[in-house]
């Protein structure tokens, strides 16, 4: 049993023959070699595997790769191409997580950053409770979240000033 899929991942087109049961996260990591998307709980709770599917965050452990056929996917590797960077190759949200120590072990970070990007697109000036609500599908076992929330606030400021 095999199925053909066509996807665009980080701006590049791919055609693959895959088993229909292959999960999107395994397709990204094992077939395309994009290991920036992490596998955490595998039960759609922790958010480590979050990617943007047609511009919206999804948990790629709970999407079949065949369901994504015809879609546009952005992983952490392709994020910096989506916003003006400071010449350091980092998206402003990535930069903010760095600046504000929004990570310790880094395992949840790609998912946290993509969820933050979606939030800031819809709400460029979120309050702390709004940030916490938007990130409630992403678990972090290191930071206690405080620095992550600060990083998102910092990213919001940075993105606003860059737009001017």
């Amino acid at each position, binding site marked *: 049993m095999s199925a053909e899929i066509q996807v665009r991942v980080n701006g590049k087109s791919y055609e693959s023959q895959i088993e229909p*049961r292959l999960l999107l996260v395994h397709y990204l990591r094992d077939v395309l070699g994009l290991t920036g998307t992490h596998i955490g709980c595998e*039960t*759609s*709770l922790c958010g480590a595997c979050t990617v943007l599917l047609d511009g*919206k965050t999804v948990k790629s452990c*709970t999407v079949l790769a065949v*369901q994504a056929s015809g879609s546009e996917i952005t992983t952490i590797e392709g994020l910096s191409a989506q916003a003006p960077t400071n010449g350091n190759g980092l998206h402003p949200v990535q930069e903010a997580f760095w600046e504000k120590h929004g990570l310790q072990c880094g395992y949840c970070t790609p998912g946290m950053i993509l969820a933050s990007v979606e939030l800031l697109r819809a709400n460029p000036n979120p309050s702390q409770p709004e940030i916490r609500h*938007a990130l409630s599908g992403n678990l972090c076992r290191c930071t206690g979240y405080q620095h992550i929330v600060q990083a998102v606030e910092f990213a919001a400021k940075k993105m606003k000033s860059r737009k001017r």
Partner: protein
Amino acid sequence: MIPAPFEYAAPKTLEEALRLVERHGDEAKILAGGHSLLPLMKLRLAQPRYVIDIGRLRGMSYIREENGHIAIGALTTHAEIESSNLLRAKCPLLAETAAAIGDVQVRNRGTLGGNLAHADPAADYPAALLALDVEIVAASTAGARTIPVNEFFLDMLTTALRPGEILSQVRVTPLAAHTGAAYEKLPQPASGFAIVGVAARLRLGKGGKIEDAGVGVTGLGPKAFRAEAVEKALRGKKASDKIFTDAARYAAQGVEPLADLHASADYRREMASVYTRRALKRAFARAQGKA
């Protein structure tokens, strides 16, 4: 956690999908957003031979007014329901309930139809849909039929859908004047599913008299249900905190509560009363144009 192998089909139309489910019967499962089915398949609790993916039938994703009711396509996501201006204006209870489901990523992907057809006893929508007394439309190659939501949930993970049917639409009556509705939920802290969730709808008449009440309860028992004893205790009475507290005592009447690691049967029964009272109070405030 990898699903067992299956054959995959992605029909281009609902008609084609209906022919496939008719042909494959029990051996087939319908895949919409996948947020109920795929977790079961990954745990191998479900091992369908055929998976029929209707997720690309964009024509089944809509929220629109039709002949005095609001029609919601089965493939409408929780995020779309949460952010719908039409629902926020005419039936805010549904938008509020959708916002209480899972998290952003889950709401981006999960669908109304998938959620209902799966019939998880702790899902949020069933409480709201029962309180609103909606109709569910099931399509088949023989045509469509309408099922009152009160007859839809039969047991844990079991609905009135017949083999060969696909849930295609939910029909909601907009809230009447002087009506308020609210959803109150005690979430399981890890999964966000309802340990108990209660949706209440109250229509007020002259002098604060309760002319109509709808109360839906989820999480408490093996299936979501309408708390008819609570509704009966409210109808015709003058709204007050005391009448809400008294009526809420009947929330678990006739139900054998579930018990698990997170909540014992006694605790669930008690919380059903507490959350019923809270939902009634908030529905009342809204019916008066407050909150």
